[in-house]
C-alpha cells in the first residue's frame, strides 16, 4: 500500500446525491455524523459541491427524470471518484422494481463500487459499508 492508497482511503469527502428517495436514507446519513457515530474520525466529511467530492452516495430509486442528471453529476466528480449505492432503492430499486417510472437500476447508469442494503440501512451498516469502500480503495493498485 503506497502513499496514494493511504491518502485516498484516509480522507474521503462524500457528496450526497438523492435520485428520488423517500428521505429515510438521507436522515440516516445525518445520523452517522452525530456524536454517537462520528464519521469524521475516519476523515469522512460531507461536502456541498460535487467538485470537492471523492465519493458519491446515491439514495433513491433512480427514476426516469433523474437518470440523465445522475449521469451528469457523476461526470462532474473529479476522478478518482467512487460511488456508493445506498439503501434498498439505490441498490436494486427495491419495491419500485416493476414501476413504470424506474426503468433501470442505478448500477446500469453509473459504475457502483459498494452497495449498502437496508430500508433504511442502520448507521452501523452504513459505517460497515464505508469501511468496505476504504478496503476497496486500499486494495486498488495504481
Amino acid at each position, binding site marked *: 500500500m503506497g502513499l496514494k492508497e493511504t491518502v485516498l482511503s484516509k480522507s474521503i469527502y462524500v457528496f450526497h446525491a438523492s435520485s428520488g428517495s423517500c428521505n429515510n436514507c438521507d436522515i440516516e446519513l445525518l445520523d452517522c455524523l452525530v456524536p454517537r457515530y462520528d464519521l469524521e474520525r475516519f476523515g469522512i466529511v460531507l461536502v456541498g*459541491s460535487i*467538485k470537492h467530492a471523492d465519493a458519491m452516495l446515491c439514495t433513491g430509486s433512480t427514476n426516469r427524470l433523474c437518470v440523465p442528471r445522475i449521469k451528469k453529476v457523476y461526470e462532474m466528480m473529479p476522478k478518482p471518484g467512487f460511488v456508493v449505492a445506498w439503501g434498498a432503492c439505490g441498490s436494486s430499486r427495491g419495491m419500485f422494481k416493476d414501476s413504470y417510472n424506474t426503468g433501470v437500476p442505478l448500477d446500469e447508469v453509473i459504475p457502483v463500487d459498494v452497495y449498502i442494503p437496508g430500508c433504511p440501512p442502520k448507521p452501523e451498516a452504513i459505517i460497515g459499508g464505508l469501511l468496505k469502500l476504504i478496503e476497496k480503495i486500499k486494495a486498488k493498485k495504481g
Partner: protein
Amino acid sequence: MIKTLEYIFLFVIFPGFLFSGAMGLLIGWLDRKITARIQWRVGPPWYQNFFDILKLSLYKETLLPEGVSSVFFLGMPLIGLAAATLVSTMIFVINGAPKFSFIGDIIAVVYLMLIPSISLMLGAFASKNSLASLGGAREMKLMLSYELPFILCLVVTIMKSGFNIRLGEMMLYQNEHGWAIASISGIISFIVMILCAQAKLGFIPFDMPEAETEIMGGTYIEYSGKALAAFKLTKAIMYFALPMFIVTIYFGGLKDTVEGFISTVLAYLLVVVLMVLIKNTNPRVRIDHAVRFFWGPMTSLAVLSIVLAYLGY
C-alpha cells in the same frame, strides 16, 4: 546574491510557505479537534488536514468549467496563496528580529491580508456559476463591512504604542510600557478585533460566502483538485498568521526569554480557542445582519475605544 538566497529561504522554508503551511494545517486540526470535543465526538487524527491537502494536490483531477478564463480561474488561488505566505513571513520575521521592521509595515500587513479575500472573490466571479457569484458578492459585502472596525482597532493599538507605525517598535514599546491589552480601551478593541478576525477568516457567524448548507460551498463551488488545495492552504496560512498578528499588536509579540516565549504561545492559544468557541456557539447570520452589526455596534465600540485611548485609559 547571499541576500537573495536569504530572502528565498525566508519566503519558501522557514517562516514562509513550508513552516506556515504546516503550522496552519496543525492549527486547523486543533480547531477540528476542539470542535469535536465540544460536540462530544472523538474527532479526526492530527494528520487529517495534511492528508486532505496531499489528496487534493497530488491525486485528484483539477476540473476547468466550460468557458471560464483559465488565467483568472487558476491564477487567483496562486495570488491568494502568495499574499498569505508573504504576510505570514513578514509577521514572523519582524517578531523574530524587530530591526527588520520598516516604516508603515502595519499598513502593508493590512493590505496583504486583504488580498486572499479579494482573490477568493475574483475566483468565484470567474467560475461562471450563479451560486459562486452569490458567494463572491457576499464576500465583497463582508469585506467592506469588517474592514472599518478592523482598521479603527489598529489605530487604538498604534495609540497605545506611542504612535509608532512600525510593528517592531510597537512590540518593543509595549514590552517596555505595558501591553495594549492591559487597558480598558485595549480590551474593548480586542473584542472587536476578534470578531473582525472571525469574519476575515470566514468562520461560522460570518461564513455566508461559503455557506455549505445553503449555497453549497459558495465561492469554492467550482474549484477542485490543486486549485481547491491552494485555497485551503491560503486559509490555513491565514489562520496561522492572523492570530499571530493580533498577539503581536496586543500582547507585545514574541519575546526572546523562555517565560516570554511561553506567554506568547499561551496568548496565541487564547486567541485561537476564543475564535473556535465563538465559531461553535453561534449560528450563521444573514449578510445584512453582518453589515449592520459591523457598521453599527462594532464601529461604535471601536470609536469609543479610540476616544478612551486618547484620554489615556
